[in-house]
């Protein structure tokens, strides 16, 4: 057998066996989405960088393949589906259409290892509800996510709580990021921040700082229950990015397999006000 050829960082071919495996997984998701009456869209493998400039920090931007095209515009290979979906959809949405239930699938390609992580080609499948800002939509997406993998453990929170606190002092961000109280945290917030870090904080504790979010989390909690699948982590502030409310992660057999949340201001950036909530599963071909 000749030496296997090397491929550019982030891509590689799938031979029949791997392809079959990939297609089986796809089919399982596609069927589930269809059953929940989600419709598929196909998003381009490359797009301009400029429309997303305000959404992507430069570190993340540098993790994607970027190049200058023949017209002199900076172009990037797809590295995140969610904003692309918003840009593609926003102009075509008519009020009557909403709410829309959509899903998508495909590879995202990253040129750079994130930290110690390996360079990996990531096959992703995601779903989204556009134009429905109700708690029901939140619950529907949480439930749908929990049905897609065996024995999932789903951690959820509302990013607006932390933002409310951080708005009062940036030291709160560091403390919550490191999970360690720091000198900088103002006296008025030390109790709540302490409780958040130690994990003792309850919804009642945070309610004063973000009443709406607290109310929503209660409603969500009542709906999904606390049967061991769903657990509320009020201290979780990772990767808030363009998320505006509910934020959740799906773990299965000790690894993170999906993440999602609500981004009610994302469509606005592309010219169309519309609430939206979605999640993305990643099927890493290496594992």
């Amino acid at each position, binding site marked *: 057998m000749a030496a296997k050829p090397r491929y550019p960082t982030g891509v590689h071919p799938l031979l029949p066996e791997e392809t079959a495996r990939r297609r089986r997984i796809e089919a399982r998701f596609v069927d589930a989405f269809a059953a929940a009456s989600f419709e598929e869209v196909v998003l381009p493998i490359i797009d301009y960088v400029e429309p997303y400039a305000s959404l992507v920090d430069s570190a993340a931007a540098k993790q994607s393949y970027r190049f200058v095209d023949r017209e002199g515009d900076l172009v990037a290979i797809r590295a995140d589906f969610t904003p692309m979906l918003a840009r593609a959809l926003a102009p075509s949405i008519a009020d009557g259409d909403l709410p829309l239930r959509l899903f998508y699938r495909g590879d995202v390609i990253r040129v750079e290892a994130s*930290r*110690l992580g390996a360079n990996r080609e990531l096959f992703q499948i995601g779903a989204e509800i556009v134009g429905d800002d109700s708690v029901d939509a939140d619950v529907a997406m949480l439930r749908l996510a929990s049905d897609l993998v065996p024995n999932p*453990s789903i*951690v959820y929170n509302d990013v607006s709580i932390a933002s409310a606190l951080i708005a009062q002092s940036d030291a709160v961000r560091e403390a919550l990021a*490191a*999970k*360690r109280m720091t000198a900088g945290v103002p006296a008025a917030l030390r109790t709540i921040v302490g409780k958040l*870090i*130690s*994990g003792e904080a309850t919804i009642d504790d945070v309610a004063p700082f973000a009443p709406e979010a607290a109310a929503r989390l209660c409603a969500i909690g009542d709906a999904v229950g606390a049967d061991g699948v769903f*657990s509320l*982590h009020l201290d*979780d502030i*990772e990767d808030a990015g363009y998320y505006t409310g509910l934020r959740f*992660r799906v*773990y299965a057999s*000790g*690894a*993170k397999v999906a993440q999602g949340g609500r981004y009610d201001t994302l469509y606005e950036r592309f010219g169309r006000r519309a609430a939206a909530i979605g999640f993305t599963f990643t099927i890493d071909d290496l594992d």
Partner: protein
Amino acid sequence: MRIAIPKGRLQEPALAVFAGAGYDVPDDADLKTRRLVFDRSGIEWIFVKDCDVPVYVEHGAADAGIAGLDQILEHECTAYQPVEFPFGRCRMMLIAAPGAPPLTKVATKYPRITRQFLDTRGVRAEVVPLGGSVELAAVLKLTSHVVDLVETGETVRVHHLELQDVIAEISPRLIVGKTFYRTEPRMVRDLIARVEEAVNVAR
């Protein structure tokens, strides 16, 4: 739960903390053996080189561990750092060779941190990664400068080197892997609480 203990200068105080926190840690007899992995009442203690602790935790090969901020930064380790320890503190510094020549080459065990430091300073200098003594590199004129940890500053004086700039204040921390933190909240809470307790008592 698997906990990574750094061999070397942090090993003893690290074990002391866990002992103080009521954990059944390997005893001196154990440590005299050449073994590096010990099961003690359900917890697996592993002893790895100090610079490798963040790697084990980042990859989930260890659930938690004790690591210096120098190693955490050098490996861009994303684990949580819920407890900072009072012991083993020092500074990472830019140090000039005898006579303080212009900055052109920097020998260091921390190439990534050094590169970032030089970039933010806008300095065009070559980073020379070394495995052994970097002070020697300056003495032997391999490089114009070195970046290294400074505790007492004794070595620096001995070699007639010149402290020029503080790059970071370094302290050891308890680090906990993110996935472990989210998927085993109870265990994590208990671990952190007990270690914090032990640290405060020791103060």
